[in-house]
């Protein structure tokens, strides 16, 4: 408001400021309204920005619908003469693409379910139950958040190998079933809930697990969605761990499969682009369906594909 001052602002008397603001106000109000209808100069910044962001994606989409000859034309064919949606069917025939898709879906769904269940349980214990060693264990869990995966991937590989899980989907799932950021997000959320409801249920004889599943989790929609969406994104897009763990084509995930597909179809650009579109469709769809949770999750965990 006009009476507010900021630290370090030139000392101006309140009356002077009020008077200046009063002089401006009649001029400013119509301007706010005009902005909605007239061409804002910000479009001149935003249109080039949007073009730069969209061109790689649109160009991929266009190429995925071109014939092979059109992709090998210079200057590039910007608008295909006839659409060739058959490219997509051809990808499904030429590569175990459906298999990779299913593998990725299985790994992602199981990992998301595991994280929701195990992290919610642990997060609840850390938030509400005073058990022996709670603070130390929680700090250890948080510490793992700061360790980059690349630093620990060699011993993790050895452990998974000893478990006999190399080259299996289980090897992709088990090490990621419970992640520290999920525990942290659940704990923070549970601490914001009013404790009275839970205490009342405890007095009525409900067990801890009963309270968690019947009272707390039904109130936890936002945090469940955030953890689910971020785990989905992270698992679907993961590349380095599948690269180390999986070697037979039948057990590959999409990201890994795409790199082998690129190796064999380097020059068949239209099929490569069609494969790429199919691989990213699920995350983009999920993004549009759950944009709010994506944005909240990305901003609060710093995770990205």
């Amino acid at each position, binding site marked *: *408001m*006009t009476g507010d001052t*900021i630290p370090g602002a030139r000392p101006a008397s309140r009356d002077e400021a009020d008077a*200046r*603001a009063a002089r401006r106000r009649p001029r400013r109000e119509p301007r706010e309204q005009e*902005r*909605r209808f007239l061409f804002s100069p910000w*479009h001149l910044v*935003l249109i080039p*920005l*949007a073009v730069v*962001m969209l*061109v*790689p994606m649109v*160009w991929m989409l266009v190429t995925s619908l071109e014939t092979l000859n059109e*992709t*090998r*034309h210079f200057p590039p064919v910007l608008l295909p003469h006839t659409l060739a949606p058959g490219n997509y069917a051809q990808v499904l025939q030429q590569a175990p693409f459906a298999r990779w898709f299913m593998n990725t879906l299985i790994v992602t769904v199981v990992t998301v379910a595991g994280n929701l269940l195990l992290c919610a349980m*642990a997060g*609840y214990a850390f938030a509400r*139950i*005073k*058990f022996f060693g709670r603070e130390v*264990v929680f700090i*250890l869990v948080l510490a*793992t958040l700061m*360790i980059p995966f*690349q*630093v620990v*991937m*060699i*011993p*993790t*590989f050895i*452990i998974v190998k000893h478990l006999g899980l190399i080259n299996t989907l289980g090897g992709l799932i*088990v*090490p990621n*079933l*419970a992640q*520290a950021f999920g525990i942290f997000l659940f704990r923070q959320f549970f601490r914001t809930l009013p404790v009275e409801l839970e205490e009342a249920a405890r007095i009525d004889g409900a*067990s801890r*697990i009963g309270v968690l599943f019947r009272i707390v989790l039904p109130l936890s929609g936002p945090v469940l969605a955030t953890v689910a969406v971020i785990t989905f994104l992270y698992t*679907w*897009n993961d*590349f*380095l761990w599948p690269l*180390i763990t999986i070697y037979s084509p039948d057990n590959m995930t999409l*990201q890994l499969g*795409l790199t082998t597909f*690129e190796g064999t179809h380097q020059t068949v*650009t239209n099929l490569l682009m069609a494969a*790429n579109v199919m*691989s*990213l469709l699920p995350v983009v769809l999920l993004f549009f369906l759950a944009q709010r949770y*994506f*944005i909240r999750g*990305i901003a609060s965990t*710093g995770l*990205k*594909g």
Partner: protein
Amino acid sequence: MTRVRRILESDNFSGWALAFPAVFLIFVFGIVPIVWSALLSFQRTNLLSPSQWIGLANYRALPSDPLFRQSVVHSLVYTALFVPLSVAGGLFAAVALNRRIRGIFLYRTAVFVPVVLSTIATAIMFLWLLDPNFGLINFLLSKVGLGPYGFFDSTSGALYSIVGMTIWGWIGFDVIVYLAALQGVPASLIEAAEIDGARAWGKFRHVTVPLLGPATLFLVVWSTINALQLFDEVYFLTRGGPGTATYVVVYYLYNLAFAQGIAGYAAAIAYVLLVAIMALTLIQLWVGRRWVHYAS
């Protein structure tokens, strides 16, 4: 019976019962590997035949390893370009996107969508966009009498091409964080600056930027950590090439451990990376404390 029940219902038991599955997994796959990595770094091992304890020899060998030195230089060059460019770009994009004008939803969506794309999907797109023969960018360059340019195939340009591509993929992340922070900038402060006669640039420079300090610090720390871990794009696009032009630390470490089986030496590199990341983070937080003001 009642005694068993009392134990089962005690806080110690129920707390541990609920926390145990997740804590056990994090212990096995998060904490054990940190210690194990340290032990490996003091050994000569290929993960198959019996290992040999060699003390600090792996670490001593690092400074005179030409490929390690090149990898470090490339990682640092990449980080020094990627972090300031993506954070500054994200700031300007966020300020432009932080207003209610027509089509703002479409603009924001265009900037956000690349954030959810995988590194491989992005790399495949750019491989085609920057294709030396049929690529769209080389077509545009030829229109203004430049090119064709090799981008990922060019010794001098491959690392910079990766910088440009990863900024495209990450800028939406910076925008999301900055937009959230901009919602917290009180309109009263901007108005007060206007009343004091501040122009657009002055308002931005002296009011908005300082208030975004905590977000900037977070983004700088986070982008640095991620930049030093660059791997997927290098593995997929260049395999460290042409020659060794894009050899970065994690690619070298991966190659040693999983292609050549020199795991002990690779573990030493992993630990150097860990210490470097922690040191850089602490320095950034320390410098940040002197420059960033948190609104109370």
